[in-house]
């Protein structure tokens, strides 16, 4: 493993989370590769709860991409795509799994490459994803189940205040209804192809457990926002949110979220901070920098600049917790039907992020704006303007979250330093 992927871990639970995920990876490999169990590949913003409730192993595309990326293989596979005639500006974020499959190099691929899944599932949140997933399904010899990402006309910038209880109103009944019907179609396909049965009672229980889990994460996010100094680094925040998120509702995930909350509380009570000399509280907007998490720690050490906020952890409260109201399918649909939209479209993105910057006492924000990726770039300019209007200077970093090819940590750290100096913050 290279230096780029080595990071300091302040919390004991972080090490346990990554160890669990490693063991889970091995277990998943055993189930789908060695034992040939039916499994699915799905985008992060799809209803994973359906697969969990049916005990169908799930490979999340973003997790798989991060896995490939962490092994420093992204450049190699993207080069293979270019060699196959794909234009070099084609979107990178969601296509690394396809690139790995098309490269067809079992010697280098994690797990020797993925076997044939039962289905691939994606919500059509951009123009490119249906093409990527359809081709990936073809290459793996299976079917693609696309899900609509319909228009959202009730535009409430303060959606996060009402989403737990008033989800019908916030997310619109017809949008929820469409996704519920699509999920029923997906369940029928899964039952037919795997022989496993879906039970709504099981989903109800899972949803209750997820609410418990996300409440712990939400509590931790609030503590981190309130505490001075910042008790937990972004490199601890992300894995302790995301790893349980992949397993949401499981015994381990609920227990881990509780433990994470408790460790955060202990550090807050002890007055422990991330940086020896915390001077700046930063906000990270965009996906995680999967290929070089040490970038964050370089900023802590050199500038006393701490990333107090990244989108995954504070997202748990408003976007995951749902009053179930005896309608678990509808509650689940309300969680999923705008998961991407609230992070990438005005007014939801800017409305939420300005509010979060205020809550966390943010001094400056950094936005990851990957080139050739309309979805990831989407909403960033209006959000930048809104943050700046609220007194938070913003730096846009033109970098990719999975492709390390154009990344230079030292240059990026210097860019950050220059930006903070220019803003009168360093």
């Amino acid at each position, binding site marked *: 493993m290279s230096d780029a992927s080595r990071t300091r871990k302040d919390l004991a639970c972080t090490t346990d989370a990554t160890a669990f995920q490693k063991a889970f990876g091995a277990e998943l490999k055993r189930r789908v590769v060695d034992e040939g169990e039916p499994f699915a590949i799905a985008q992060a913003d799809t209803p994973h709860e359906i697969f969990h409730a049916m005990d169908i192993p799930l490979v999340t595309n973003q997790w798989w991409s991060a896995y490939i990326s962490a092994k420093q293989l992204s450049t190699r596979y993207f080069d293979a795509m270019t060699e*196959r*005639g*794909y*234009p*070099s*500006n*084609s*979107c990178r974020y969601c296509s690394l799994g396809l690139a790995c499959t098309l490269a067809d190099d079992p010697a280098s691929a994690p797990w020797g490459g993925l076997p044939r899944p039962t289905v691939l599932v994606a919500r*059509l949140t*951009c*123009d*490119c994803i*249906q*093409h*990527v997933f*359809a*081709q990936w399904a073809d290459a793996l010899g299976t079917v693609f189940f*696309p*899900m*609509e990402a*319909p*228009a959202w*006309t009730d*535009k409430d*910038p303060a959606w996060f205040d009402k989403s737990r209880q008033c989800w019908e109103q916030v997310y619109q009944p*017809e949008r929820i209804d*469409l996704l519920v*019907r*699509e999920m029923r*179609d997906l369940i029928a396909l899964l039952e037919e192809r795997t022989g496993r049965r879906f039970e709504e009672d099981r989903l109800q229980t899972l949803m209750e457990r997820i609410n418990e889990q996300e409440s712990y994460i939400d509590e931790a996010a609030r503590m981190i926002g309130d505490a001075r100094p910042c008790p937990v680094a972004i490199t601890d925040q992300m894995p302790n949110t995301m790893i349980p998120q992949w397993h949401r509702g499981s015994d381990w995930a609920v227990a881990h979220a509780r433990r994470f909350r408790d460790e955060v509380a202990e550090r807050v009570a002890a007055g422990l901070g991330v940086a020896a000399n915390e001077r700046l509280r930063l906000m990270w907007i965009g996906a995680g920098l999967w290929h070089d998490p040490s970038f964050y720690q370089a900023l802590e050490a050199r500038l006393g600049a701490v990333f107090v906020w990244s989108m995954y952890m504070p997202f748990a409260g408003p976007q995951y917790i749902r009053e179930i109201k005896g309608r678990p399918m509808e509650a689940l649909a309300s969680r999923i039907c705008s998961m991407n939209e609230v992070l990438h*479209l*005005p*007014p939801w993105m*800017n409305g939420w992020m300005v509010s979060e910057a205020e809550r966390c006492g943010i001094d400056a924000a950094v936005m990851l*704006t990957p*080139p*050739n*990726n*309309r979805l990831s*770039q*989407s909403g*960033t*300019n*209006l959000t930048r*303007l809104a943050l700046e209007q609220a007194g938070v200077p913003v730096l846009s970093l033109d970098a990719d979250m999975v492709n390390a090819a154009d990344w230079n940590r030292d240059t990026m750290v210097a860019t950050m330093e220059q930006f903070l100096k220019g803003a009168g913050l360093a």
Partner: protein
Amino acid sequence: MTALAKIDSILADPLGHARAAPAAIGYFGLELPEDLLAAFGTAAHLPWVPDRPTPRADAWLEPSFPGSARSVLEDWADGRFDFLERVLFTRGDDVSQRLYYYVCELQRRGEIGGPTPLIFDLAKIGRPTSLEHSVAATRRLCDSLGVDAARLEQGIETANLRRRALARLDSDRRAGGSLYERIGRASLFSPEVFSVVPDDLPAQTFRGQMLLAGSAPPDDRLHVAVERQGWTVAAELHERALDRLGPELVVGGDPVLAVAGRAHASPLGARSFVDRAQWLLDKARRCRADAVILWLASEEEALVWHVPRQRRLLEEAGIPVLVLADRRWDASDGAAEEIAEFIGRMAR
């Protein structure tokens, strides 16, 4: 005024017809049903200006938005569309749907004014759930525009006349392709095009026939580049192609079902589920193309995924293809020179 002068005058003032009407709507995105637009009365696509500076739009839109969206948003901010009652956007096109949200937000923040934006929530997946969603979306749009069933049937009749006129024109190309590009573009802005196009367009002969596919170019500049080499663009395969309205729409019952069904199943646009490589090959054969230019703007997200197979199928069929991927929308990156070189190479 001659027919060709009329077309040029429409392109010189694309909103002239809409401005003269007592009530007009605008639209942005080519997945809005022509039948519904015709049923409303006067509707014009929002025009774009390829080479204009767009300083305000650049501050609001990220680099991945194409030039057409920038130009339109800049004009919106300038108040050029203030006379329109409403502007329709479509969920069937990612650029159009995102621009809808941006416009709504900029209006909310008081940065811009102008007409009320509406979105046509078209769903394209080939399942009953998506079709039903599209039917409901079509009904909602009809209600918003005050279009009842009888008016929609009239709109379908009008749109069918337009389909017939475009099909006749497309199948009987005698002049250079740039003329047909101008006619097709003008048809987005004014229905006068359908009544002024004469049967006796000037016949010309060319040394070769090109199919132009991929992204829709801003205007006829790629056609002109082909014509400069003594060739012509004999057909287009992009969202603004002359056959964009598809075959005539037959109504057997509820006109909303017919219109929504057509929009849901239309192969045009980035979100349709169609074998794009086979479609390209079929089109190249149908128009007897000697060669194909596959031109893809830098902002193109969807069609790039089909380039390898499209290229392979064309090459297997013995049809030369020039792939111009990741190109500047205004074609200022040497596209014309590369086209000249490609055609010159075939002549040798």
